[in-house]
């Protein structure tokens, strides 16, 4: 019997210490929702109780139902037959079960059948589902599509589509990527035009579309003829009918999730929001939601791989003892565990930052509608937006890279056995590989986070942490964090003074890691105040970050700064 919520002490720790009362109160309109909806909470405590109960149901489904089916789903995969996509049996069964549990519209408003949960709670659901079967998350975790429709589309479109998402009748897809527009979405060529009756229609080809066979598709297309950049792109929503699936890809991992090439043949569609804001506003918002979801997915996979490695290391005997007693193996386990727990701290801190931004936006809109003064709200929203805009890519970069390392080490601990397909780690290793690629590669996450690291977007928060007094074993750790922060400032000034754009880009990951590690170190240090186990995690994480900071400084300040210029002389084809 495994329940992926109840058995995970660290996830429970995060849940118990979320402190999201303000977010919940705002989301529940100060608990006025309870007057209209019998399932709405009457206060924050009641809300947390409901979240816990629902997460327990999800944890049970993930542990008892999804995880046992995952190996078979991986083997069977999604199929493409007679122009249609068929899910693996285990995927279809799991989706049916999640629909029965009523968790397919977790963040959507109750009026459409949703649960009105904060993003933070939804992210916990994604983590658990991914631990069960990473490929199932690619369908369960597409709730951001519905969220985008809710956020930006007209109310009629919302009424048309959202109830179907909530009931689980319909799944969605976001059709952005094209053969010549991957990371560079400005190059999208799929055309959107209005026919003689004013009906919008789509024409073109999209590639690598996760669940492209889904019932409802959000499509980025060029609505402004003659344009070549992002300003000519708008967002559309259309039904599956009229969308032709041409093929599905054979992938390294995530076999349960169909990745489709789809073609629009003058497919009727509806405009979402306003023209020309497709990429600039709507897709950026959609992608940021998806980035958080992918972070949770990576963490879930890492958790599963760690569990396998832990079990194996404690059972496998060599040279007369179980292998976890060998320091080299022990260190791998320690690193895995610390990386999982710090990733989790970062993930839910980021999710809270996203929730905070969303709620401030909601409050601002309310204030505007009621004709109330909103200047202060507006300032707070701007700051919260900047924080979320840094933390989201930093979180995705950190969690997905670490998850890859964790799955790599999980195989290493298994030795030759891990290379064999009979063991689950091999699947986790394949499944995790794409998490630092899709929804923006790690390299692009660094680009997205660099601005915040240079401008010091978290400085206000870090100042507060810096001013705090820590006692006992926490004090030296606090000192180390201050030192890392000072090194980070030094590097930032150096890069700005050097004023070399290419070099800045080259060393961006050093600066982002430095800056981010101060923030994450502060998070972990605060957790160590209330948990002895977290003190050990903090010691390891901050110690490692301190050592790495020396390397980052050395790279930035004394690095091989003509490397890019000299590249062609030594980086040759063979």
């Amino acid at each position, binding site marked *: *019997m495994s329940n992926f919520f109840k058995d995970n002490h660290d996830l429970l720790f995060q849940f118990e210490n979320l402190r999201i009362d303000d977010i919940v109160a705002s989301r529940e309109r100060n608990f006025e929702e309870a007057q209209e909806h019998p399932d709405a909470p009457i206060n924050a405590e009641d809300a947390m*109780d*409901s979240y816990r*109960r*629902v997460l327990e*149901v999800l944890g049970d489904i993930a542990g008892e139902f999804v995880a046992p089916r995952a190996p078979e789903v991986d083997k069977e995969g999604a199929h493409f037959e007679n122009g249609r996509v068929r899910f693996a049996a285990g995927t279809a069964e799991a989706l049916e079960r999640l629909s029965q*549990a*009523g968790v397919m519209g977790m963040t959507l408003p109750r009026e459409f059948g949703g649960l009105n949960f904060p993003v933070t709670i939804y992210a916990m659901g994604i983590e658990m589902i991914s631990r069960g079967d990473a490929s199932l998350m690619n369908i369960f975790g597409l709730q951001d599509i519905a969220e985008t429709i809710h956020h930006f589309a007209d109310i009629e479109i919302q009424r048309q589509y959202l109830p179907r998402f909530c009931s689980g009748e319909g799944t969605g897809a976001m059709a952005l990527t094209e053969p010549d527009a991957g990371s560079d979405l400005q190059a999208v060529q799929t055309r959107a035009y209005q026919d003689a009756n004013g009906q919008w229609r789509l024409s073109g080809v999209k590639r690598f579309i996760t669940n492209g066979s889904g019932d409802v598709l959000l499509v980025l297309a060029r609505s402004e003829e003659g344009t070549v950049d992002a300003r000519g792109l708008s967002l559309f929503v259309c039904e599956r009918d009229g969308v032709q699936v041409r093929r599905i890809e054979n992938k390294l991992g995530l076999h349960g999730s169909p990745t489709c090439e789809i073609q629009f043949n003058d497919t009727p569609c509806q405009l979402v929001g306003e023209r020309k804001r497709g990429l600039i506003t709507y897709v950026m918002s959609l992608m940021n939601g998806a980035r958080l979801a992918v972070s949770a997915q990576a963490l879930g996979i890492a958790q599963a791989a760690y569990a396998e490695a832990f079990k194996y290391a404690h059972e496998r005997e060599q040279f007369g003892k179980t292998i976890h007693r060998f320091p080299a193996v022990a260190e791998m386990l320690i690193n895995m565990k610390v990386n999982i727990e710090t990733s989790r701290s970062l993930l839910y801190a980021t999710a809270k930052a996203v929730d905070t931004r969303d709620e401030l936006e909601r409050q601002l809109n309310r204030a505007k509608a009621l004709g109330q003064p909103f200047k202060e709200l507006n300032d707070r929203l701007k700051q919260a937006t900047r924080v979320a805009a840094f933390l989201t890519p930093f979180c995705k970069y950190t969690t997905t890279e670490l998850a890859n390392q964790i799955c790599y080490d999980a195989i290493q601990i298994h030795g030759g056995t891990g290379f064999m397909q009979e063991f689950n780690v091999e699947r986790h290793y394949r499944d995790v590989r794409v998490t630092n690629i899709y929804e923006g590669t790690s390299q692009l996450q660094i680009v997205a986070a660099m601005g915040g690291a240079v401008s010091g977007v978290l400085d206000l928060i870090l100042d507060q942490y810096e001013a705090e007094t820590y006692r006992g074993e926490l004090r030296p750790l606090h000192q180390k964090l201050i030192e890392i922060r000072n090194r980070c400032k030094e590097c930032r000034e150096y890069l700005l003074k050097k004023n070399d754009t290419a070099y800045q880009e080259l060393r961006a990951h050093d600066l982002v890691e430095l800056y981010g590690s101060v923030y994450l170190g502060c998070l972990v240090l605060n957790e160590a105040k209330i948990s002895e186990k977290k003190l050990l995690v903090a010691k390891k994480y901050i110690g490692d970050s301190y050592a790495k900071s020396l390397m980052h400084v050395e790279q930035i300040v004394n690095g091989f700064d003509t490397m890019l210029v000299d590249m062609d002389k030594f980086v040759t084809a063979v």
Partner: protein
Amino acid sequence: MPVNCVVCVKQVPDTSNISGQVMKPDGTVNRAKLPTVFNPDDLVALELALRVKDLYGGKVTVITMGPPPAAEVLRQALWMGADEVALISDRRFAGADTLATSYALAMAIKNKCNADIVFCGRQAIDGDTAQVGPQLAEKLDIPQVTYTEEIEWVGNGTMVARRKIDDGFERVRAKLPVLVTVYGDAATPRPFNAKLIMEKKRARSQFELERLSEDNPFYYYYNDVDALEKKGLLIKTWSIEDIAADEEKCGLKGSPTQVFKVENVVLTSPDRKRYEPTKGDIERLIGELIADHIFG
């Protein structure tokens, strides 16, 4: 045609999670130490009833006879989609064997429910008798289908069900009202529904409200009884009088079963032997198996 389903369920000790302290020295079970669960076969019975409702409409009523804590399984039934629940509870029901239990359930169904199909789990994991379902059908004087796997069709005052037999299944037709006992592997019970959990987590029985007032002298539970009833959150409680049962046939008085003796059987396994995967060891193992007449 809407179908009225009544599901009889039981709260049982979780026998899959028994730890050392649970058994008393005399070999009986210390129930206070055992976590309780929804009897697994009964969950499947509820699932089949909910499927009938999904297909034909109607209502699913879940009843249980048990002490006040049994309200928990009724709440869980609500989270799965049951429309109404009732707790048959009265001190005078205590000590009931299967005969007295089926009598009380029969009186409750006769006098308080209007059932087209009565669902029972095949058996409970504590008593393992599998008697209550069949006895209940006899007392209600209606046909019964045991080992049911699926209700295939309901209409025109009849039902077609599939029942498990050795090496296959049997398809049977029965007149309504009918009682079915459901085989535990027949279906996977649906999960609790998120909205229903949040809506019905506050459902309380009268006992539970009374308990709150015992702990807090300023709390008047009868105000809440009305409020909960209005919201559909009151778990109805039925006493002997409510179901018009004869006290002599209930509880210990109505139970001819006498426990003669409980023996604590300790299974002792012989010493463990270890055979290495070597040719010599395997030959030795085969030799011993032949000597023990396990191999011919």
